[in-house]
């Protein structure tokens, strides 16, 4: 039996220790990451009161099926990312430990203000991590938008606090029907806007290209998998468990998330660099997952969170490695790269095809499940738009894979002489990551129960199976 507080406390303690014992900082990072993975798998459903103040007056940590599922994904992808890109850690161990603590805190907390604090700690660590590649303009953009978003979120929860007098999530959920509709509209708009920055929803995602598009192997993996998972899972927690939307507001938010999906995929289609493509693909996927959450299909959304986190971890780590070791991530300049690194290419291809949702891969299972359930709740235009965007997604991913495997002009026979002169170094770690995650995605494609058994509460209210 593991106390969920340790998931936050151990990385935070090790972060302080790593400042004092500079020599041992990487050892501390490895220890904390391993501990968190282990603890996330051993965690049982429980609720912990912090500081002896009973909720709703004090802060409590909630470990239910939802947060345990998020914690397992979060800590696993964080650990895989750190281990496979260990040579890029350099002096960032302390920041990584703080961000690990904050992300775990975001998943566990049961208090809206506590969530704000963890959100800020996580985003401050993210600002620092995004300076890894010395692209400060993107970082500055991220700081301004991130700080604006958190302030709007704070304003939203304070408006609700002064109306119902509580900040506890469960207590808020039971009292939210007392709030005047106009006040609720204002407060929810602020909260949505605040979360949209971190979750990369449409009008607030201007920072994504500057940060994701300039990431290296370590920061790319952590941003696109661990941060994206935590942000979108908290979005789901707030807009499905606490505030249940209906009426006009739901239509407006759904329009925003669906438009995010479509426009994100269209923007990704027109990019020439792998990292920019993946960045806009992340935007699109965030829109898709948020749409599923807002439609009330939490279980399906969580399955897609798992699919997205695993796929983006592999792809972003490899794309970051291309930038670090080959000096560029332009698709034209890297054609034929996977002929040199076949195992890495295998993992990258499986991840990309699973994200697109091609049959025999896990993403297909998720998308069919999502579409059939959307039809069941009498929604027709959302599945149509999802299918349309998936088509765009499929085109650019398959075009990218074709270039990376087959050097040569489009429409002509591919020849080995077009193969790029560039190659990756340090490939063992990336190959292990690619093969492990690639095989895992193939495994869950045939045994989807591996994922679904952990979230049965959230799937039981969805009628029928495949």
């Amino acid at each position, binding site marked *: 039996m593991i106390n969920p507080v340790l998931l936050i406390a151990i990385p935070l303690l090790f972060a302080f220790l790593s400042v004092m014992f500079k020599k041992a900082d990487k050892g501390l990072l490895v220890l904390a990451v391993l501990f968190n993975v282990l603890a996330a798998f051993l965690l049982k459903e429980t609720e912990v009161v912090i500081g002896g103040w009973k909720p709703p007056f004090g802060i409590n940590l909630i470990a239910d099926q939802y947060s345990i599922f998020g914690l397992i994904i979060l800590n696993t992808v964080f650990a895989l990312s750190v281990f496979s890109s260990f040579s890029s850690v350099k002096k960032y161990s302390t920041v990584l430990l703080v961000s690990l603590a904050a992300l775990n805190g975001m998943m566990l907390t049961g208090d809206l203000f506590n969530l704000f604090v963890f959100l800020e700690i996580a985003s*401050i660590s993210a600002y620092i991590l995004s300076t890894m590649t010395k692209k400060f*303009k993107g970082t*500055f953009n991220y*700081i*301004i938008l991130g*700080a604006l978003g958190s302030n709007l979120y704070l304003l939203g929860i304070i408006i609700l606090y002064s109306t119902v007098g509580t900040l506890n999530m469960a207590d808020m959920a039971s009292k939210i029907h007392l709030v005047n509709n106009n006040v609720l509209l204002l407060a929810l708009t602020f909260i949505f806007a605040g979360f949209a920055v971190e979750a990369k929803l449409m009008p607030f995602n201007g920072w994504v290209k500057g940060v994701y598009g300039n990431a290296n192997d370590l920061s790319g993996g952590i941003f696109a998998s661990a941060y994206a998972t935590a942000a979108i899972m908290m979005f789901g927690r707030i807009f499905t468990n606490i505030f249940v939307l209906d009426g006009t507001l739901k239509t407006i938010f759904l329009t925003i998330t669906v438009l995010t999906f479509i426009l994100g995929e269209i923007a990704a289609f027109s990019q020439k660099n792998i990292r920019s493509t993946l960045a806009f693909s992340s935007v699109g996927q965030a829109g898709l997952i948020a749409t599923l959450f807002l439609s009330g299909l939490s279980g399906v959304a969580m399955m897609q969170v798992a699919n997205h986190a695993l796929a983006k971890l592999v792809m972003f780590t490899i794309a970051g490695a291309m930038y670090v070791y080959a000096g560029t991530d332009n698709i034209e300049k890297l054609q034929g790269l996977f002929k040199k690194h076949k195992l890495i290419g295998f993992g990258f291809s499986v991840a990309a095809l699973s994200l697109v949702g091609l049959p025999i891969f896990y993403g297909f299972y998720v998308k069919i499940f999502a579409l059939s359930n959307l039809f069941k709740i009498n929604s027709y235009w959302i599945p149509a738009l999802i299918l349309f965007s998936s088509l765009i997604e499929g085109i650019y991913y398959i075009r990218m894979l074709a270039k990376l495997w087959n050097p040569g002009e489009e429409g002509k026979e591919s020849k080995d002489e077009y193969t790029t002169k560039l190659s990756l170094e340090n490939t063992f770690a990336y190959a292990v990551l690619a093969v492990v995650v690639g095989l895992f995605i193939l495994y869950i494609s045939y045994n989807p129960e591996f994922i679904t058994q952990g979230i049965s509460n959230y799937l039981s209210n969805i009628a029928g199976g495949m």
Partner: protein
Amino acid sequence: MIQYLFIGLILIGIYGLLTQKNLIKLVVALNVLEVGVNLFIISTGYVKDGVAPILFKGVPSTNGTFVDPLPQALVLTAIVIGVGVTALALTVVRKIYEKHGTLNLDEMGSESDD
């Protein structure tokens, strides 16, 4: 009524973020926004004729009206976070100045690799 002033501060901050081109001014606008939010939070805890929520021995608790202490505690946290973000933003501004030699967003070029 004074809450309108704080909402005004928040709007000034957002206006500044949208219109300014100078990086330092952007950070200042962000701070104006933060001050507006913090003052707004404090103002929600105000109770007419309320006293500081501290119980003394021997002093009767007036007529039982205290101001709400929770918003003050929240603001204390929010101020600390705001200082941290401001410090980090200014560090990044300095790095940008070293790299591009200007603080104006229009004058610095793109920083992509190709």
